[in-house]
Each structure stands twice: as C-alpha cells, then as structure tokens.
C-alpha cells in the first residue's frame, strides 16, 4: 500500500490517456475533413498511440 507508487501510477495513466485521447481526436477530425485518407490516418494514429503506450507501460512497470 505505498501511496507514492499508487499516485505515480495514476499520473502515468492520466498522461497516457490524455495523449492518446488527443491523437484519437485529431485523427477523427482529419478523417472528417478527408474521408478518403482513412487508411493512412488510421495507420499513423495507431503508430503514435503505440509509441505513447510504450512509454506508459515502461513507466508503469517502473512504478
């Protein structure tokens, strides 16, 4: 029951959530503007999300 560890893990999740949420939001807007580019936008969104998630997991494991 280490409070600093729990708080740290919560902060990491907030950061990751905000980051991926922003990426998802911009991806949605971009798809709305140009529906034909759906495939490329989805690919780029997944890559960026995976990079952020990688950092998030590394931090969670350290915590």
């Amino acid at each position, binding site marked *: 029951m280490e409070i600093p560890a729990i708080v740290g893990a919560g902060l990491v999740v907030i950061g990751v959530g905000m980051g991926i949420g922003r990426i998802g939001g911009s991806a949605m807007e971009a798809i709305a503007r140009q529906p034909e580019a759906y495939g490329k936008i989805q690919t780029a969104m997944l*890559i960026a999300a*995976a*990079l952020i*998630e990688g*950092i998030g*997991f590394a931090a*969670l494991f350290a915590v």
Partner: protein
Amino acid sequence: MLSASNETQGTDKKAEIKAYITHHLQDSYDFSLTSYTDQQGVHHYVGFPLPIILWDNGLKVFSSSKFHHGESVAEVDGAFYAIEHNKIYKTDEAGTINYDEQHHPANPKPLDLSITKSVVMIFITGLLMFFLFRSLARSYASNRGVASGAGRFFEPIVLYIRDDIAIPNIGEKHYKRYMSYLLTIFFFIWFLNIFGLTPLGVNVTGNIAITFSLALLTFLITNLTGNKNYWKHIFWMPGVPIPMKIILAPIELLGVFIKPFSLLIRLYANMQAGHIVLMSLIGLMFIFKSWLGSTLSFGLAFAISLIEVLVALLQAYIFTMLSALYFGFAVEEHHEEAH
C-alpha cells in the same frame, strides 16, 4: 465469527490466486496443462515433463519429472539440484539453499540450456510457420500464380507488409533485403501472442528474455547494415551548426540504443499486463462467489480477452512497423537540402 472466517478465506483465496497467476506468467520446466486434487486429497498433475539440459562441468540431461514439480531434489551423476523460484541451483542432498542479505539464493547456478515450455512453444510456432508458408509458396507454382490452401488467408497480409510497411519506410531500392526478417517477426510475434491467449498456459512474448532477443536482432540488423549516411546522421548531423552537432552526438548515440529498447519494453509490457489483467479478472470470479459479481467479472474478462486478440495483432504490427522504420533510417540516401 462468520465474517472473520470469511475474511480469512478471502485473503487465502487472494494469495492463492496471486500465486497461481505468478506461476502462469513464468516459464516452467514441465508442460503442465492443469492440476487437480481428487477426493483422497492427492494432487494430480496433467501434463508431461520436459528435458532439462545443464552444463555443469559436463553436459547433464535429465527429465524434469525428477524434480516432482519442484518439491524434491534431483540427483544426477552425484550432483544435486533443486528448483527455487523457477531457477535451478546446485545444492547438496538435503536441498539446502543459502540465502544472502537480500534474501536471494546464493547457491551456484549451472548453465541452464533446458527445453522449457516457452522453448517448446517457439519450436511449435517455428514449425507451424515453416509448413504454412512453404505450402503457400508451393501452391503458387502448382496453381499458376494463384494461391490455394490454408495459406490463402495470409497472402493479403504478406502483400500488406510489403506494400504498406516495407516499401514506404525502406524505399524501393533496398526493401527486399529486409522482407524476410520483417515477415518472420510479424508472424512469429502474432502467432506467439495468440498462443498466449489459449488455455495452454504459455506466456512466450510476455517473457523479457524473448522480446530482448527480438529487439536485439532488430538492433543488430539496423546497425550492421547502416550506410555512411546513417552513421553521419548520428555522430555528425549535417545541416546544423557545430555546437549543436556536438550536443546532438551523444543524444543520437543514446537513441541508437533506446529505440530497440522501447520495442522490447512495449511488447513485453503489453503482453504481460494483458495476461495479468485477464487472469486477475478471472480470479475475481472466484473471490466474489455470488451470482451477480461472478457473472459481471466473467463478462468483463470476456470483453478484455477480445481486446487482447486485437492487441496481439496490433503489437505484432507495431513491432514490424517500427523495425521497418529503423531499417529505413539505416539505408536512407543523402537528400540535398532545399534552399
């Protein structure tokens, strides 16, 4: 009184589930599928033992059934070995383990080359991939350019990897050199991730040694096939003033190591965390023991396992994509700066 006994039962259950999850996540020296305790209280194991290969002043090969699931000391040619926390230590006849200050065992460890459960799964996956893709390749010759058989499902995926992962990142000139590696790691990681979700209880990609080896391969291939432009970009970045070049060089050098390291951590953490969450939810079913709680946690566990199937494919795709990106950096030609 009743509530107190329920609470002790609760904590025992939690500790039991935790021990079960830890056992499930680790590699093991025998392929045990399940175990049960019958009415006489005797513990039965369903599974088969695997060979243990040790190098300890000589090659020692024996079956892991000598350990009796970690309970007894194995004697081979006069030397005694015991398993503690899933590692083999050299010990004496009574099986004493000497602990040092941090409560880690201080016995000498022989060099362990055993065929463990993960190694068996890697062999099976390798054979599966070999036969699957060999039949696909052969069907092209016998069917005049049209794929047939079980490999038909993988043809669009192979083409996708070539057209949308390899060529955009590596370029038309050099992509063929790397295609075999990219295809191999994509299907290897994907199949192993899916195997991890089956009830067989294997956890291969959640093992940091295995993801370390895959990331090491990407690292070696990137740096051994890097051309002069690649190394120039690391140590003496063109197009920036000299003080910046000196600052950038150590950062870029760190980046050479950190990029494959992030590949390693991403795959390991995703798979490990997925397994832990899934098994904790299933264990939650047993802690609740009520109609509503167990049903809800079952539903949640089911939904999460569907997401895990998606994550299996996604992680394989991301690993392959980023490896292709790093290979693209390694073979990038020099662009003239547009002024």
